[in-house]
């Protein structure tokens, strides 16, 4: 029961906090007041039952708690009249409050790390301890990151509003990138294993759904949601029971969440038919093609290669190039893939570049070069499961290399 209540409070808290920040113009006061209201809710709800409108109930109680706090803290006298005026109106829940909060937490004047932490904390209602676990940093470090970001919002007067039409494209990118980074944190733990009862992937999908609900006409928001949903639908087969990476070709597709994959595909179909196509929509389309294939050898590589070419045209970079090379290799063979991986700037320290290149060399039977290239990949790898995979591949090609008298 208490667990359910805590979850309700966490989910509803984002909306309540957003409204309180608008009313009080202070992150700290809003958080304190919400905390006070949460304590009351945990006492009352088990006895009285959960109110029909938990967010409205919490907002009213929290608003009164905020007033109490302002009255108590006489040092705030100079602000009191202002705060009283702001709190004087009844707290009408404004659907745009959460969008304002999202844009404020994802302001480009904040570092990406700060945005991620702030969005999870304030909108997602995730505790500092859990965010620290998701990102494998000490709780104190994460607490400091969040409090610094809040100080910057207050001190630099980062506005609490939805950006104008003119600003929107750049600002929306910052929001999308933040949600995407939360998601990838769940999929690529930098080292060791993830340990949190909350899943960063689920939290990122919640934020993406919220963004779609708040901005229903924004195709890139839908693209991001579809990308996350279809990728998340395959997560159970990404690692085996020993925690090792399982290649897409070897994953047990019967374990994928077909319902989620179909949902994501229909989002992709509906957005791709509309206007200009952005990078998240293209990535969602690619991810959906992988998810839809019932067997690896049924993957529509031709279409995937086309989509990567489209993506590279609007968002060039080493990551897109490596992925495109993988697709082109499936269509035209490993030599075609290898051709695309000569002289890519900025990929020297990136293990996926080296491991992909090594894979092409392995498939071409160029064992000696494959050995050297797998070794480069190992030098760059930061993740235990990736290292185990690369070591097993390296052992395989080393055997062939010496076996054929290569050196």
């Amino acid at each position, binding site marked *: 029961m208490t667990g359910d209540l805590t979850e309700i409070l966490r989910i509803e808290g984002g909306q309540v906090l957003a409204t309180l920040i608008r009313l009080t113009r202070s992150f700290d006061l809003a958080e304190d007041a919400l905390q006070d209201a949460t304590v009351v809710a945990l006492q009352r709800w088990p006895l009285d039952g959960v109110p029909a409108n938990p967010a409205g109930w919490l907002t009213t109680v929290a608003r009164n708690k905020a007033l109490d706090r302002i009255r108590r803290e006489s*040092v*705030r*006298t*100079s*602000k009191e009249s202002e705060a009283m005026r702001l709190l004087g109106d009844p707290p009408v829940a404004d659907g745009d409050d959460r969008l304002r909060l999202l844009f404020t937490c994802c*302001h480009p*004047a904040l570092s990406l790390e700060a945005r991620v932490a702030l969005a999870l904390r304030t909108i997602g209602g995730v505790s500092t301890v859990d965010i620290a676990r998701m990102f494998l940093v000490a709780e104190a470090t994460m607490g400091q990151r969040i409090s610094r970001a809040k100080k910057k919002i207050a*001190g*630099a*007067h*980062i*506005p609490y509003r939805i*950006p104008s039409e003119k*600003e929107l494209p750049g600002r929306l990118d910052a929001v999308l990138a933040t949600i995407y980074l939360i998601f990838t944190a769940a999929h690529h733990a930098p080292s060791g294993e993830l340990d949190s009862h909350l899943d960063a992937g689920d939290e990122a999908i919640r934020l993406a759904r919220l963004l779609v609900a708040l901005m229903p006409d924004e195709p890139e928001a839908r693209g991001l949601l579809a990308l996350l949903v279809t990728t998340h639908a395959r997560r159970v087969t990404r690692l085996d029971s020993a925690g090792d990476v399982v290649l897409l070709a070897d994953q047990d597709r019967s374990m994928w969440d077909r319902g989620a994959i179909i949902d994501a595909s229909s989002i992709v179909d509906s957005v791709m038919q509309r206007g200009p196509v952005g990078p998240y929509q293209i990535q969602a389309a690619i991810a959906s093609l992988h998810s839809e294939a019932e067997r690896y050898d049924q993957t529509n590589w031709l279409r995937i290669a086309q989509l990567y070419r489209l993506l590279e045209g609007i968002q060039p970079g080493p990551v897109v190039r490596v992925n495109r090379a993988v697709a082109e290799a499936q269509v035209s063979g490993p030599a075609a893939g290898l051709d695309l991986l000569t002289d890519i700037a900025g990929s020297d320290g990136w293990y996926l570049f080296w491991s992909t290149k090594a894979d092409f060399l392995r498939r071409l039977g160029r064992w000696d070069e494959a050995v050297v290239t797998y070794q480069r990949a190992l030098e760059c790898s930061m993740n235990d499961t990736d290292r185990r995979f690369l070591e097993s591949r390296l052992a395989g090609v080393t055997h062939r290399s010496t076996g054929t008298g290569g050196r």
Partner: protein
Amino acid sequence: MPKYAALIYSPAETEGMGTPEDWAKVMAEYNVFGEEAGAAGVLVGGEALHDSHTATTISVSGGKGGDTLHTDGPFAETKDVLGGFYLLECSDLDEALSWAARIPGAWHGKVEVRPCVDFTEGQ
């Protein structure tokens, strides 16, 4: 209304370089900014600074009245030097950043925007 210091930095190696024509061209750009920001009422103050080698940095050891240590040059020897600043009064950071983006130093070098402390604000 919050105030922001827009600190204008340029690469140290370009300091004192350039022909009088280059200088006149840049000054004309700054004049445009001064007119626009002044007309909008956001420009509260600002100065251009002499080259960084004219700077003297001092520190006093052991508290007030202690020995003054003089260092010939700017506080930090970096590849970018502070060349001037504006004081802008804007409603929020977004407005301050949009004005900062119109300062010629933003394309000749970099502009750091720092909110000023408002000592009248109770905390």
